[in-house]
Each structure stands twice: as structure tokens, then as C-alpha cells.
């Protein structure tokens, strides 16, 4: 059981209390000369009271502001070093991270990488450091919040003589009509929005106590932000996919489990006009500057259950123009304009002619990504696509083959069926080259043009953690504002042997508190109390100077 200290005013204080929670009498007699240390009201903090078990020691360690500041500074230094060389995500795409740092920055680069600075924010020791910081924030807050709350709740209006004398602001006034002064003081202080409490011969005016909780609120916000950071490591908390989609195509949006589809109508890129008088000089210097990147799309939702491999029925949701800074948003997803490719081959056009009659039967167009098998003309003329080589080359045996599925160098083998040749003639066609496999073909296919399309590079994101970060940041900011833009001010008045004593304390913002006191003295005729700290500073200085 912990010891209880009974003050002369009768209040029972927990072990470790420095100033009586009720009357403020100093219970530990060290600081006889100096002003009282009013931090946390001189309440009994666990960390200042117990230091026996290992748990006490750990608790005290994390509770210490010295440790806390050290942790903040360590994180700061680590993060600063992390900007000396680029993080791994920012090194050139073709560089090998294993060798990049050594080659570029020599021995420093090697050490940098070995210590994990190349990927700082995922390196184990940095994460541990943040863990310690978080622990410290939690422990320090609990250690102070509970006793501070208790002390402020138990405070009495009437304070001990020594408590009053050793406040930074203290003054006395000799007067016969204290009663009148107290009445006037009450009115004046209420005008200044103080909450006034009275007891026999004593008055306590207080305002802004809630601002004392600001630090604890902001620390909670920080913890929420740290939790959001931890959640990032859990799979499924966020979706981050790339989507390349050509104009005219419709594709399932990756990461949405085939629930949503997107159709790209058009990608466009606009630059500033060279002769724009507004930007002429800058454009002359910089060359061309891009004004917009934009993908015009339609968003669809799949209807009903989709059978694997089958095209689902789509319901249109909306048309939208995705631009940089203007993502498409739906059901928690965001789709961003991130990249583009222009003028990619999309379809090839061919003309079918009769070699003798020099007669044309018309054109047909082959989609390079999903070619059809048959292309029909009037009067029973028909072209059948037998083989398609998107990325054509001759393999080791001299046979036609393809290197990849990307139509970098398309080639085709067609079979042309006509009423007079029902079995058909085969012909081989590649870009710009046109060889009939059997030289004496009756019908000829010629290249009649290339259809190109632009391709939009989109990024699909859904991130549950954003909201947690955001809420944490808001709690943090509210807490900081609560603690910084308001402050806790108290003014004590007491009758003592034909005198009225006045003391005041604030956790910050002495300037405004003094203004309140000045108002009070003007309204009541009390003497202006003195600022004992400033006086001390001036006295010390005079001591030096003389």
C-alpha cells in the first residue's frame, strides 16, 4: 500500500505529492527560496514516486521528457540523413539498387545502404525508433494526465500562505474594506470571463482550464497517426494498381475484383500556346510546357455475378474526364491520371484486289489486340486470318514466330476465299512487306494504313488508412490549438490581517494574464502585484553590472 500524506488543511494526498492538492502547501521542503514549480500542480506522478521494480524503471524511462526529446531528435536526425542520397524508390528506374549507391556515392553510399538509409522508412531500426517514440508518448501522457486531473479537481479556493507568496505574480494591498474589494473583483473578473469561486475570505478566479488537456489530446492524435502507419503494413488495407488502357478499350479496373469497368474514349494532352502573350517569355526560355493530361472515360459496374472468362453485362455509372489533380472517385476508389503513351499501333488496314482485273473489293481492318477470324466482303469474297504474329521474326528454323504479345512488328497469314477459288489462297503480310507464299496468287492483299491509339496510364487506389491518418492529424491539430491558443489562468485573492493578497499563475501567456490583472487592479484599487521572475532577472543583472 502506498503512503498517504495528510496536509495540515486536512486533505489526504497520495504519496509523492509536492504541493498539497487542496491548499497548495509545499509538502517537501527543499525549494525554500525560489518560486514554486507549478508544473503539473506539484502532483504525485508515478514516475517521480516509485523506482523499485524493473517495471517502475521502464515506466520512468519512457515517462521522462529528456528521453522523449532525445527520441524526437533521433528520428529527426535519421530522417535528415535519409535525404542526403535518394531513397530507393527515387533512384533511376534502370539502376540496380544493389550496386547503385556504391557506384554513385562510393564508400558513403555503401555505408548508407548497409545501414538501411536507402529504404529508411521500412528499415527495422527506424520502425523500432518510432515504436519507442509512441511508447514514450503514451507513458508520459498517462503519467502526467491522471495526477494533474486529480489535483485540479481537488483544488480549494483557500490556499496556503506559502503557496501564494511563491507564485511568480504576487502582491499585497493594505485595506480596511476588503469586502467591497472582493465584490468589485468578482464583477471585474466575471467581465473577463473568469469562473469565480468563493470561500470565507478567499476567492479563486479561473479560466481556460480545458486547455491543460490539449497536450494529451494532441498526443492521442499522434498515436492514431502512428497506428495508421502500422496498418499500412497489413495487406489489404490499401489497393495500389497500375492500369494501362488504350483508347476505345473497356477493361476491368484492377483491384476491384471485376466489379468495376472502365472504357477509355480518348486521351489528350494539351500544351500552352507558344504565342500566348501572358507566358511568352517563360515559354521561350523553357520550350513547350504541358497544360493538361486528360483521359475521357466511362465508368461501368458489372451486373449480377460474372462467370469467369465471360464478358459481364455492364451498367453505365458515369462519364468523367480524369486529369492530373482531378481523379475519378467512386466507392472509396480513386483513379488517377499518371502516365500516357501516344500513337501506339492499334489496327492495320488492308485492301483486297484482283491482280488481273485490277479491281478492288474493298478494305478491312484487323484489330492488333483482338483480331477477328473472318472478314467478309460482298458476293462471297472472304478473308480468313490463319496466323497472327504480333511481334514477328523468323525463328532458328526459318519459320515465322512472335517474340511477344505486343504488336511491335505485326505479321499475318491470311487465306483469301473467293467464289472461283473456294479453297482459298494463302498470303503472308507483314508491315510494309507483302509476300505471297505462293507467288502466283490471283488475289492480292495490300497494306492500306495503320490505325493508332493513345494509351492512358492510370493508377487505381483505395486506401482505408488515409482516413485514419487524417482523423489522427485533425485530433493532433485540435489538441495543439486547444493547448496553445488558450491557456489556463488563475488568480487568487485572500484576506490576511488587514491586507488583501493577490497571486496569479498561468501555464503560458503571462502577458495576457498580466493584462487581466491590470484590469482587475484598476477596477478594485488593489496594488499592482509584481512579477517576481522579472524582478529576479533584473536584480541578477544589476548584480553583474555593478
Amino acid at each position: 500500500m502506498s503512503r498517504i500524506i495528510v496536509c495540515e488543511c486536512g486533505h489526504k494526498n497520495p504519496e509523492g505529492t509536492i504541493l498539497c492538492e487542496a491548499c497548495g502547501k509545499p509538502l517537501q521542503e527543499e525549494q525554500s527560496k525560489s518560486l514554486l514549480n507549478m508544473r503539473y500542480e506539484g502532483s504525485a506522478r508515478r514516475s517521480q514516486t516509485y523506482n523499485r521494480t524493473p517495471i517502475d524503471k521502464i515506466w520512468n524511462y519512457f515517462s521522462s521528457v529528456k528521453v522523449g526529446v532525445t527520441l524526437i531528435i533521433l528520428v529527426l536526425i535519421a530522417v535528415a540523413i535519409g535525404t542526403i542520397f535518394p531513397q530507393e524508390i527515387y533512384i533511376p528506374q534502370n539502376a540496380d539498387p544493389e550496386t547503385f549507391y556504391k557506384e554513385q556515392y562510393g564508400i558513403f553510399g555503401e555505408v548508407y545502404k548497409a545501414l538501411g538509409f536507402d529504404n529508411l522508412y521500412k528499415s527495422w531500426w527506424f520502425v523500432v525508433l518510432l515504436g519507442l517514440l509512441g511508447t514514450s508518448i503514451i507513458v508520459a501522457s498517462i503519467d502526467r494526465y491522471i495526477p494533474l486531473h486529480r489535483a485540479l479537481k481537488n483544488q480549494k479556493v483557500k490556499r496556503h500562505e506559502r503557496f501564494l507568496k511563491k507564485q511568480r505574480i504576487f502582491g499585497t494591498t493594505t485595506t480596511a474594506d476588503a469586502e467591497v474589494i472582493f465584490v468589485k473583483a468578482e464583477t471585474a473578473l466575471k467581465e473577463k470571463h473568469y469562473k469565480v469561486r468563493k470561500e470565507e475570505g478567499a476567492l479563486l478566479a479561473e479560466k481556460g482550464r480545458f486547455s491543460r488537456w490539449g497536450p494529451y489530446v494532441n498526443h492521442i492524435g499522434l498515436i492514431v497517426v502512428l497506428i495508421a502507419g502500422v496498418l499500412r503494413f497489413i495487406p489489404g488495407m490499401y489497393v495500389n494498381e497500375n492500369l494501362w488502357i488504350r483508347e476505345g478499350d473497356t477493361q476491368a479496373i484492377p483491384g476491384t475484383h471485376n466489379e468495376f469497368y472502365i472504357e477509355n474514349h480518348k486521351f489528350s494532352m494539351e500544351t500552352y500556346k507558344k504565342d500566348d502573350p501572358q507566358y511568352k517569355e517563360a515559354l521561350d526560355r523553357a520550350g513547350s510546357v504541358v497544360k493538361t493530361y486528360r483521359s475521357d472515360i466511362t465508368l461501368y459496374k458489372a451486373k449480377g455475378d460474372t462467370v469467369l472468362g465471360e464478358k459481364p453485362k455492364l451498367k453505365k455509372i458515369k462519364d468523367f474526364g480524369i486529369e492530373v489533380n482531378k481523379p475519378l472517385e467512386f466507392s472509396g476508389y480513386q483513379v488517377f491520371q499518371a502516365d500516357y503513351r501516344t500513337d501506339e499501333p492499334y489496327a492495320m488496314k488492308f485492301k483486297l484486289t484482283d491482280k488481273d482485273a485490277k479491281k478492288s473489293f474493298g478494305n478491312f481492318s484487323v484489330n492488333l489486340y483482338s483480331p477477328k477470324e473472318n472478314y467478309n466482303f460482298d458476293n462471297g469474297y472472304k478473308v480468313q486470318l490463319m496466323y497472327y504474329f504480333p511481334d514477328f521474326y523468323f525463328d532458328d528454323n526459318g519459320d515465322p514466330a512472335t517474340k511477344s504479345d505486343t504488336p511491335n512488328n505485326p505479321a499475318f497469314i491470311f487465306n483469301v476465299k473467293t467464289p472461283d477459288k473456294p479453297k482459298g489462297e494463302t498470303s503472308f503480310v507483314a508491315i510494309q512487306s507483302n509476300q505471297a507464299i505462293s507467288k502466283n496468287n490471283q488475289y492480292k492483299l495490300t497494306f492500306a494504313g495503320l490505325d493508332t491509339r493513345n494509351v492512358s496510364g492510370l493508377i487505381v487506389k483505395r486506401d482505408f488508412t488515409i482516413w485514419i491518418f487524417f482523423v489522427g492529424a485533425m485530433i493532433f491539430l485540435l489538441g495543439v490549438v486547444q493547448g496553445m491558443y488558450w491557456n489556463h489562468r488563475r488568480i487568487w485573492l485572500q484576506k490576511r490581517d488587514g491586507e488583501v493578497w493577490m497571486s496569479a499563475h498561468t501555464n503560458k501567456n503571462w502577458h495576457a494574464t498580466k493584462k487581466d490583472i491590470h484590469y482587475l487592479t484598476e477596477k478594485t484599487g488593489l496594488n499592482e502585484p509584481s512579477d517576481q521572475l522579472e524582478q529576479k532577472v533584473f536584480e541578477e543583472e544589476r548584480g553583474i553590472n555593478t
Partner: protein
Amino acid sequence: MSMVQISSALLLTAFILYLFGTILFTVSVTGKKFKSKKKASTGSRIGNFAFFIAILGFLAQVGYIFTRWSADGHFPISDMFEYTTFLSVMMILGFIIIYLIYRNNSIGMIALPIAVIVIAYASVFPRDVEPLIPALQSSWLMIHVTTVSLGEGILMLSFVAGLVYLIRVIDQTKRSKRTFWLEAVMIFLVCALGFAVISGIFQAADYSEKFKWVNEKGSEATLEYKMPAIAGPHDGEKISAGFGPLFEAPSWMNGVEAPKKFNTVIWSFISGLIIYGLIRLVLGGRRIGYALNKALRNVNPPLMDEISYRAVAIGFPVFTLGGLVFAAIWAQQAWSRFWGWDPKEVWALITFFFYAAYLHFRLSRGWEGEKSAWLSVIGFVIIMFNLIFVNLVIAGLHSYA
């Protein structure tokens, strides 16, 4: 007159008004020293007038912002010139807020000349009206940058008050580490002025000299120096007539046109040191700190400490809101990630951590007063580092040309 010209004229007006205001504040602070109580009110009357001049300067700068806005077609914060100028406006706004709370003239005496230096520094960068690339076309950009610079402006006032504190309390009768570092801060400020002066001189002379080099993106390019090359590009080749280079810039400087900026930094130090030498001559060989200490005899140190702290208390949440929260919202929209560990982002985070550390240091006894004042100086150095050196040394998304 075109809108651009009007905006430049307004900026110049503000510049002159701040110079004038500096003199008035100095008179109001030093004049009081010799006078009796009755005369002290003259000092505060001059102080009121000085504050009025500062307000006029501020209004001229607000006029600059709006005219420049209309010329740009977007809020004027998209390049170094505009951003730095904007920072000076926000610093003055910070000053106005603090002055309205504390009515303190010595703050004005130091804050206004710093604003003058910042404007002079800004005015050296190219002033062409620039079109915005798509990533910058967002109202969040405007919200983000205005809030960050307001926060930084207020935090810079913490430095101003801290500096006044240090000038006041550091014993200048004998040399010490403290007098040395305080003087180093003065030299740094004079070098910023030196930068503006020397750039102005070479710009007026239309100096130019060209190099062939491999730029930060790894491609061949020409680099035009507007000042004689003391430090040339790494592995560069001079392709025009002109001075130097005496040596080459180190290869690890990776920012946009880094060697040129590095060369400018060297020139700033040279000209800064010359100006500093001249100032010391005028002061009869005494340190600047010594002269200012004499001028600021009547300052109340605990009050300065409180102002310095208060500026952090007010500026810290504003900076956090703009530099981290709004920045993240914008980054999410423009780059699809709200945080990307880009160097400029990281340095905003470092600033945040630093001021958080400042606030916690102050919880311990003995950290109020002089130690806090030195911390506020370090905070200012970090803000300046982010403004000047991150662009110079580190390549990233934010590095303005």
C-alpha cells in the same frame, strides 16, 4: 503599365517602406534610452508611426500579390521569386500579429530589415510569368503554400524575438563562444544581403558565360552563368569567353542547375563578407552584436523570451496544418500518394519535429531564456535550409528551377 509592372512597382514600394520603417523603429527603440519617462512616450509615438509604415508596406505587398495574380492567371507562388516574396509578406503578417499582441518596437527593428533582405533575395530570381504544369493546377496548392508560408513567417518571428533576446543578454564586453555565434548569425544575414547586391550588380552588367555539361537528369546541356564562374560545373567545358572557373563544383550537388547556384552562394559569401567588413568599419571596429546590444538596452528579456515562445506556439499548428496536412491532401490529388518521402516533404517533417522538440525542451527547467533563443535560431536555419539548400543540393519534385 502592364499588370506585371504595377506589381513590381508595388513590391519596390513595400521594400522602401520597410527600410523607412526599420529606421523609425530603430529611433523609437534607441531614442528612448536617453530620455526621461515623459519622453519615453515619444518613442512609442514614433513606434506607432513605424508600425503604420509597416502596415502600408504590407498593403503594398498585398497589392503586389493581387496584381501579380491577375498577370499570372494563377496565385503567385509557383517559382522561387514568387514564393520567396510571398514568404516575406507572411513574415510581415506574422510581425503584425505579434505587434498587435505585444506592441513591442524592438521586434520591428529586427523584423523589418529581415523582411527587406528576404525581398532583396527574392528579387534576384527570374520574374517571367510562368504557366503552371498540370500537377500545380490545384486550389490545394494555393491553400498549402499560403498556409505553410504563414506558419514559417510566424516561426521566423520566433527567431526575431530570440535574436533580440540574445543581442540583449549576451555580454558583449568580452569575446566568447556566444558573441562568436551571435556574430555568425549576423554575418549570415549580411550574406543574404550580399547575394542580392552582387546579383544586382552582375545583372545590371548583363554578365554571361556558358558551359557545356551533363545536367542533373544525365543529359548534355548548356549552363549559362550570370556571374563569373568561381566554381564551374563538374566535368564541364567552357564554351564562351569569361572568367574562371577556379575549381569545379562537387559532383554530389544534384539540384537543378546546382553548380550555378553553388557559384552564386560563393559570391554571396564574398560580397557578404565585404559588406560586413564595411559595416564594422563604420562601427569603429566593433561587432554588429555589440552595436545592437547598446541599442537594445531597454529590452525586457523575459518578455522577449515569451514572445519568441508565443510565436512558436502560434506558428507551429499553422505550419503543421499547411506543411503536412494540406500538403498531404494536395499530394494525394496530384501524385496519388499523400506522402512520398520527397526531400522537400521530409524537410517539412524535420521542421515539424524540430519545433516539437523545442516545445518539449521548454518543459524542462533551465531551457527557457537563452537556450530557447538559440533553438529559435536553429529553427530559422532549418527553414532557410529548406528554402535554399534543399533546392541546391537535392533533386526532388519540388525543386523550382
